[in-house]
């Protein structure tokens, strides 16, 4: 197995365009890290409970819950994956309690609708709270009631189109607030996010729009000084035909007689529909594969390490996640 590509990364941020499967990739990465004996916290911030569904556990509260263990590898003891569903309201109250000891004022804030205002309407506050909590979970020498120390934190982050703004929100904040606790907190969050202890991975599928968005996302992250990790190509089509056969399938020159003879050998009862059907499917597949290959080339020119996961015909359930985790490990992402 290759050495992990991001050995110093403690915080893995996983983003991607909607529908590319970023939650699945984040979960697989967490499992892969756990299979190397690490204790991992897998966080989600979009309120979708995607982690609970993937791991087939009860909806996650705003509390770190044990959700899975990594695969046993050799004599090393596998680590555990914990899940955390970060809600901005709870994060704000926790934050207030932790830093300000507001007491009565905290309750008054809630009564006056300030909490709702802050978490739904005030520009950027929501993202500040979410990133703040991720930072808190990932930082060294974490203190407080039942706080576990994790070897790695994996964040199922907002989609590619919003990721630079999401992670960069603290630098805006640090610019706005000239001093005080907000300023220093914002500064330390940004210094973690900008360091090599963070790796931001982008998930894509091999289609034009997501690949374009990935390229744009990488450019945006770089411009914001945020560390780009790898690109994970997800949902890749099976590669059951070699180049020459693909070409023949595309051009419609596969040998019909030979295929018919093969099907007979395999003991199938043949009719015209079956052979025609298989050849048509092969043609469709070959056309799509050609488009995929073109996009794969574009991805390979992005100048970042790339990883590839297959589409699982049965969907990604818990068993599928372990399969994908093993593939990520083999390819050296974890």
């Amino acid at each position, binding site marked *: 197995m290759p050495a992990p590509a991001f050995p110093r990364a403690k915080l893995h941020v996983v983003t991607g*365009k*909607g*529908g590319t499967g970023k939650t699945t990739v984040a979960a697989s990465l967490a499992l892969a890290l756990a299979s190397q004996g690490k204790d991992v916290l897998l966080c989600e911030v979009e*309120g*979708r409970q995607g982690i609970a*569904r993937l791991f087939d556990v009860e909806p996650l509260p705003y509390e770190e819950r044990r959700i899975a263990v990594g695969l046993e590898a050799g004599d090393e003891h596998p680590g555990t994956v914990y899940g955390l569903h970060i809600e901005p309201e709870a994060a704000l109250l926790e934050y207030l309690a932790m830093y*300000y000891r*507001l007491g*009565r*004022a*905290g309750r*008054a*804030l809630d*009564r*006056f*609708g*300030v909490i*709702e*205002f802050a978490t*739904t*309407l*005030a*520009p950027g506050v*929501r993202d500040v709270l979410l990133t703040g909590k991720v930072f808190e979970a990932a930082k060294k020498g974490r203190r407080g009631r039942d706080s576990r120390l994790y070897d790695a934190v994996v964040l199922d982050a907002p*989609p590619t*189109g919003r990721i630079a*703004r999401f992670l960069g929100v603290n630098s805006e904040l640090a610019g*706005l*607030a000239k001093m005080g606790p*907000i300023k220093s907190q914002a500064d330390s969050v940004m210094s973690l996010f900008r360091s090599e202890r963070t790796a931001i991975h982008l998930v894509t599928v091999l*289609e*034009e*729009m997501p690949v*374009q968005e990935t390229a744009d996302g990488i450019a945006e992250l770089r411009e914001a000084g945020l560390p780009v990790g790898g690109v994970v190509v997800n949902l890749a089509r*099976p590669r*059951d*035909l070699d180049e020459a*056969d693909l070409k023949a399938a595309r051009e419609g020159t596969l040998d019909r007689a*030979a*295929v018919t003879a*093969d*099907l007979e*050998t*395999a*003991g*199938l*009862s043949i*009719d015209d*529909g079956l052979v025609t*059907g*298989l050849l048509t*499917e*092969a043609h*469709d597949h070959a*056309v*799509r594969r050609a*488009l995929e290959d073109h996009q794969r080339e574009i991805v390979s020119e992005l100048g970042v390490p790339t990883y590839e996961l297959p589409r699982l*015909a*049965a*969907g990604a359930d818990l068993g599928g996640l372990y399969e994908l985790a093993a593939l990520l490990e083999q390819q050296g992402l974890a």
Partner: protein
Amino acid sequence: MTKAGTKSTKASSRDRGRARVGPLAAARSPAAVLDVDALLDDPGTGIIVCCGSGGVGKTTTAAALALRAAERGRQVVVLTIDPARRLAQSMGIDQLDNTPRPVSGVGGGTRKKSGSLAAMMLDMKRTFDEVVESQASPEKARQILTNPFYIALSSSFAGTQEYMAMEKLGQLHADAQREGTYDLIVVDTPPSRSALDFLDAPERLSRFLDGRFVRLLLAPTKGPARLMSAGVGLVTGAVTKLIGAQVLRDMQTFVAAFDTLFGGFRQRAQKTFELLQADKTAFLVVAAPEPDALREAAYFVERLNEDRMPLAGLIVNRASPAPEGALSADEAMAASVRLAQERPESVTAGLLRLHADRARLVERETGLRARFAAAHPSVPTAVVPALAGDVHDLAGLRQVGALLADG
């Protein structure tokens, strides 16, 4: 799902395993098929809203519906939120200018009436600015537009995009009514965290503008300080501590300047909500044949019903095309393994594996759709098979439109 196998002509001993892969069987029964053309042709359809979770092809669907309607004789405008660059270019709206632009190359000579298509891309900040300008005196408008808090709110507040999409819809509708420019408006909705945000955003914003917190911000600028209760003092103190005095002052100025506009905003939000509930509006929920997207779609369908929004149907995008023939996935896999042993060089084993893969995908998607249909039997559904490539020109949109109409 029981009527599959019509194409099966082979030995009956294998039929048991085949019942499941009838093409589109689940979409035809129990759920009704969505008749897209009837919807587009109905002069009573004045607004079509395409909604659904991110990445399911809402924008493409909206554009394809708009083009098809135009080519069937309607005067259409389509409001897109964040179209792919090349698609936007092909419609001539690659620049954000917040005004509908005519799309050239729209055909449609077959009908008596000739249709037209205009398209625009939403500029949320500009839309917000325009609302402020139309509601406030020039001097007050300037005050608001230069306020740092307003600038942040109008360009990044979670929900502004949703709110402004609905605002723009209201504007387009009012203009169209007044000037008779369009008889059909097709709206794409923003890729929000939750597909419902655009329904909630106006309500949330007006609740905020109406809320105690705002009145509290206003209090110091309005009344004598001694009227402030202890609670108010506590809160402003806490807020100041959190965000700093400068930000609080910005907010206060903003809220004070905005005060007179609140009524107008609330009224507009209310009107848009009523417009969405009107009979001439049709909601189309767009989903991909994936558990998450369909779950979101189900939630949306329920929510629309609750809010008495007129739901026209569900569009399942990017469905895997049903495999031809009746060979099941298991049979294909077994045959592939046998063949790979006997003729390792042969391409046919690969073909069989591809077939098995596709049959499994289709089976899974059919199951997911059937589950949705079982829970929501009254929702007419159209299934759109996946295209090989991305759509980035009118020809592609036309093709999607035809597939939509095929249901």
